[in-house]
């Protein structure tokens, strides 16, 4: 008995230590961002500033219009998430209704698509978007939503639908529901936790996208937040607290969203 409670305590300590290790980047970034400008950075392990200040965030305005970039990032990400949920779940749902053999074919296709590095598509996608007139347009940033943003998202949805008992869909079909109806009224609601997970992951996908805006945008009109980091890296390279304030701005919304959703995922047992 005492042996097993000792083991549980040991395991808990290991878990705490692991969690602490993975929290370090966020702690370090935010601590540096709150450091008052003009004073030397601490050279001790205790990273929290004595007099925390938000001045760095005010100074960011001198380098880029973060409100406008943030607005662009936000609406492009939200539209991207909406489209991705629709396309990934629809494709996953339709494939889950096919015969076993065709299902395997689709799974192989998705896994193969996962094996194509994005870099392999950059040069010719650039030429393609140019011919389509999508350069310097949000369409170039939103294009991946057409194909579920990532085959990974479709696979997760497909897996969720396959885990759902078939009878639920069959009874909807007997009641005369078409594909779109059973998708909207049955499939999406019963996989709501998966939808939340995909929503979060695809938000991270679009919000964090750095290369698409860098390659396909030519003006500042639709520039998104990650591009601001490039500006900071070039103009304020050794002003660490300013740069970490920029990093904080870029990571704030996805991280806050993730933390806010954690209780939801906790209730529904992770990874299922």
């Amino acid at each position, binding site marked *: 008995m005492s042996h097993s409670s000792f083991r549980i305590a040991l395991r808990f300590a290991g878990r705490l230590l692991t969690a602490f290790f993975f929290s370090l*980047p966020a702690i370090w970034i935010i601590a540096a961002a709150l450091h008052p400008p003009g004073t030397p950075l601490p050279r001790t392990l205790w990273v929290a500033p004595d007099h925390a200040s938000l001045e760095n965030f005010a100074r960011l305005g001198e380098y880029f219009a973060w409100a406008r970039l943030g607005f662009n990032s936000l609406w492009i990400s939200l539209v991207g998430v909406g489209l991705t949920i629709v396309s990934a779940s629809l494709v996953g749902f339709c494939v889950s209704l096919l015969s076993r053999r065709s299902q395997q074919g689709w799974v192989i296709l998705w896994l*193969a698509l996962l094996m194509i590095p994005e870099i*392999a598509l950059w040069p010719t996608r650039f030429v393609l978007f140019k011919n389509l007139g999508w350069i310097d347009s949000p369409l170039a940033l939103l294009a991946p939503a057409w194909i579920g943003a990532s085959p990974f998202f479709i*696979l997760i949805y497909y897996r969720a639908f396959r885990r759902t008992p078939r009878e639920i869909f069959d009874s909807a079909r007997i009641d005369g529901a*078409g594909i779109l109806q059973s998708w909207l009224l049955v499939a999406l609601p019963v996989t709501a936790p998966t939808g939340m997970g995909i929503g979060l992951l695809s938000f991270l996908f679009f919000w964090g996208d750095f290369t698409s805006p860098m390659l396909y945008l030519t003006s500042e009109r639709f520039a998104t937040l990650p591009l601001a980091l490039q500006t900071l890296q070039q103009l304020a390279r050794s002003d660490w607290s300013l740069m970490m304030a920029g990093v904080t701005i870029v990571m704030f919304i996805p991280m806050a969203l993730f933390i806010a959703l*954690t209780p939801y995922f906790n209730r529904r047992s992770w990874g299922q």
Partner: protein
Amino acid sequence: MPFFRNLRQKIKRNSQQSSISLILGVYLLGVSLLVFLPAAWSFGLAFFQFDGLTPPRWNGGVNFILAYSDQLFSLSVRNSLALIILPAPVRVLGALLAARLMQRRGRWIGWLRSAVFLPSAIPVAAMAAAGLWIFNPLYGPVNLLLQQLGLSPPAWFVEPLWAKPALILLSFWSIGEGFLVCLAALQDIPSEIDEAARVDGAGLGRIFVSITLPVVAPTLALLAFRDMILSFHNSFIAIFFTTAGGPYYATFTVTQLIYEQAFDLLSFGTASATLWALYTLSGLLVIGLYVIIRTWNIGITDEPFIL
């Protein structure tokens, strides 16, 4: 009457079939336009001289000679091996160990799991910019920590020898996706098996090697492949922010080379010829994948978990 009911059901089923085909058709059209067409195009573009502005001109194998005789090519392949291919299995193993540690319920388990994913919620570009500060030789927290331990830490991104380890260490924080996948794969191992092994006197290490590893092996292999491919992209951004390929080309990877050829030199043909090396790698991975799928029958059996 039954005849009409059958007919109605048949029409209904047919219309269902056709809407499934329509939806999947739209998806396949997107995949063709956004993936297959660009891939095939750059596959062929390797034989042309093309700057993205004037029409492409056939130039035979010149691009291949230009691309593969470039000293930077072999250097960048070696760097990619060290920075992208080799760390992938280690990252996946780390994700599995973290998932194993966080597998069973316990106090605060949800929040502790969420902490492991936390760095992965930071956009890659932000994490890369933060890396410049985290591994800063003078003020960076990593070096302050190492100094407290009595070590004399290196200057990381500034030193040719230490720039690669710094990039790899930075990437070890962002293993959230693999962590979640491993967690889901582990949930499928019934806890009774664990208990039975423990009753029989198996230690933690023995259970991990004899039960956990074999069950999640196909998932791990897929994850490692996936990790390599994703790392081509993520390491590009990390390098773009931290070392820009330096110092002395120590972190110059194939991705950097292709980016320079295509978007700095506007030599899409040479870039495409270099891309052939990447396509070869993708092809090998797809073959490996196919073997895994055949061996474990992924997608047709009733196995509870696929990636």
